[in-house]
């Protein structure tokens, strides 16, 4: 791995690892139980520059790039994927703003996002499985007073904790989801309500709720990018989400593999450690192999982002691979630990519950395939 990472990227990963050990490990189990948003911890993440990770220095960001982002997310996820989720979703909003924001918009939001004063969220989902089309349940209409948003966004991560939301809305009901635009909505916007927190089986600590828009009026300055940029913003932010969640998935899986391997060495059955059994070795070997290959795909996709090159197809491939493989990583490592892997006083059940949430996000099941196929068949 060190051939592919610069010294700085390795050191950043190490810092994230040390942070995870010192601040996340002690609270991970309790956070999973209470699912209460860890505000102080997020402030601490900000103090270590994690919230402004890839943002430009002129806005107070660390400009560390996306390979570094992958390192950070993976290492934090080893200890608490729930906390990593908060960072991932904040990063999606930060990315969209940095990529498509006007100088005024960037100045208005990026410094606070970098310093952690403001937590961001990206509101993309809607209720009902999306067969590959854009938003419809939230519509934005342009009226004399500005843009008026009405409807609901679903399963918004960081909802309630965020101060700014980047929201995808439909701009033409007749277009069946093909007309989409992105808006910047502050949490104190009149008419915006955060719904009841949703119980998730994993990634707990990262709040999830619906956002209701009741005639929320926004000025033209709230439009992110041009009207025609909506599809690109959607696709590219989803692509970044794929990369970030891949890092999360791999962090969780790595923690699971290491725990299961350590367990296998000490668990004696039939007079010897189960680590000596080929069946166990196979389960671990296959898991480690998938992690390794996934990690290479992740680094390459992140590196493309760093170079400013198109990365949507590679991100989609990464998502596809991990969606296929992802939960199996925990299905197999739990299997190594048998009954102990199923008992909530051990760590693997939490990792099992977490990883089911990192491989499915942000796009419907068929989305990655469509992107990849389009690149081959266009």
């Amino acid at each position, binding site marked *: 791995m060190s051939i592919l990472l610069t010294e700085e990227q390795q050191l950043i990963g190490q810092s994230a690892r040390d942070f995870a050990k010192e601040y996340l490990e002690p609270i991970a189990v309790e956070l999973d139980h209470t699912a209460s948003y860890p505000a102080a911890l997020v402030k601490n993440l900000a103090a270590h520059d994690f919230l402004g990770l890839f943002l430009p220095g002129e806005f107070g960001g660390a400009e560390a790039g996306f390979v*570094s982002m992958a390192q950070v997310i993976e290492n934090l996820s080893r200890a608490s994927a729930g906390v990593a989720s908060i960072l991932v979703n904040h990063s999606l909003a930060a990315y969209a703003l940095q990529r498509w924001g006007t100088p005024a918009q960037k100045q208005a939001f990026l410094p606070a996002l970098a310093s952690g004063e403001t937590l961001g969220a990206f509101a993309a989902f809607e209720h009902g499985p999306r067969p590959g089309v854009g938003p419809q349940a939230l519509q934005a209409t342009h009226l004399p007073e500005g843009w008026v948003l009405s409807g609901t966004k679903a399963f918004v991560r960081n909802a309630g904790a965020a101060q700014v939301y980047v929201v995808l809305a439909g701009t033409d009901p007749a277009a069946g989801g093909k007309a989409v635009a992105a808006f910047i909505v502050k949490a104190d916007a009149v008419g915006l309500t955060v719904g009841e927190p949703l119980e998730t089986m994993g990634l707990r600590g990262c709040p999830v709720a619906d956002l209701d828009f009741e005639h929320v009026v926004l000025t033209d300055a709230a439009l992110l990018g041009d009207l025609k940029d909506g599809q690109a913003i959607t696709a590219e932010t989803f692509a970044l989400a794929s990369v970030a969640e891949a890092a999360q998935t791999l962090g969780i899986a790595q923690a699971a593999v290491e725990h299961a391997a350590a367990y296998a060495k000490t668990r004696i059955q039939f007079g010897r450690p189960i680590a000596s059994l080929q069946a166990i070795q196979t389960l671990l070997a296959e898991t480690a192999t998938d992690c390794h290959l996934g990690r290479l795909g992740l680094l390459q996709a992140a590196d493309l982002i760093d170079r400013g090159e198109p990365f949507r197809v590679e991100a989609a491939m990464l998502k596809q691979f991990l969606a296929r493989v992802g939960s199996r990583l925990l299905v197999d490592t739990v299997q190594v630990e048998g009954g102990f892997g199923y008992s909530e006083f051990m760590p693997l059940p939490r990792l099992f519950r977490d990883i089911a949430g990192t491989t499915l996000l942000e796009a419907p099941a068929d989305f990655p395939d469509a992107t990849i196929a389009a690149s081959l068949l266009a």
Partner: protein
Amino acid sequence: MPKLLVCYKWVLDEQDIKIRPDDLSLDASRAKGKLSDFDRNAIEEASLIMEAQGGTVDALTYGLPTVKASVKDVLSRGPSRLLWIGDPAADQADAYVIANVLAAAIRKAGPYDLILCGEGSSDLFYQQIPARLAALLELPCVSFVQKLTLEGPVLTATRSLGDGTEEVRVTGPAVVSVLGEINKPRIPSLKQVLGASKKPSEELPLAGLGLTEAELEPKALRRAPRGFLMNRKNIIYKDADPAANVGKLVASLEAEGLRG
């Protein structure tokens, strides 16, 4: 505005070292380098003083040429400048040689108001370097430091003596060696990591330090280290009569040659 120096060692991460079961030799092929534990505290302490009082912190190290890999790691933890001496014979060096080299470098790059070291390194834990440096540089030496304040040239230190503490006051310059409990090293932020490459670092060639052949000749020879494996015998003496159990235990200890 004090001018501080921290000496550090780049060691193999013991977590990655495996003991070969057949001959108990060490397999360090997968071991990565890391900053020696107490040196991390020394660097942190120097950085804290600089943050409070201004001035500069130089970091200094002597090791194999691969010690170059430590530069950014150390600079991300606060020091203003890093000086490193790479020498293929460094892994044969004993405390005598190491202290000679460091002292020569300090004479060249100094003078310093305060020289900080870790109490001992994570790998060999000689605990000799600070005292030898102090002797070579004709400076006072304060060891086992768990708390430190610097006011002007006056250094106040609390030393940990196992069953108690001792407070000493010294007028600097001085050499100080610190324990792990002196501080909790902060985790470098991303900006600190990225800022490391912008700070100056310089290789000091060994040849340019003016040391004689004798001063570079180790007086102590270190042979191949052997690992230690705990082997449990898993024998329980469960006689109903405790005296019988004791007798059996004593007999097996004798058989192991443990009673003499």
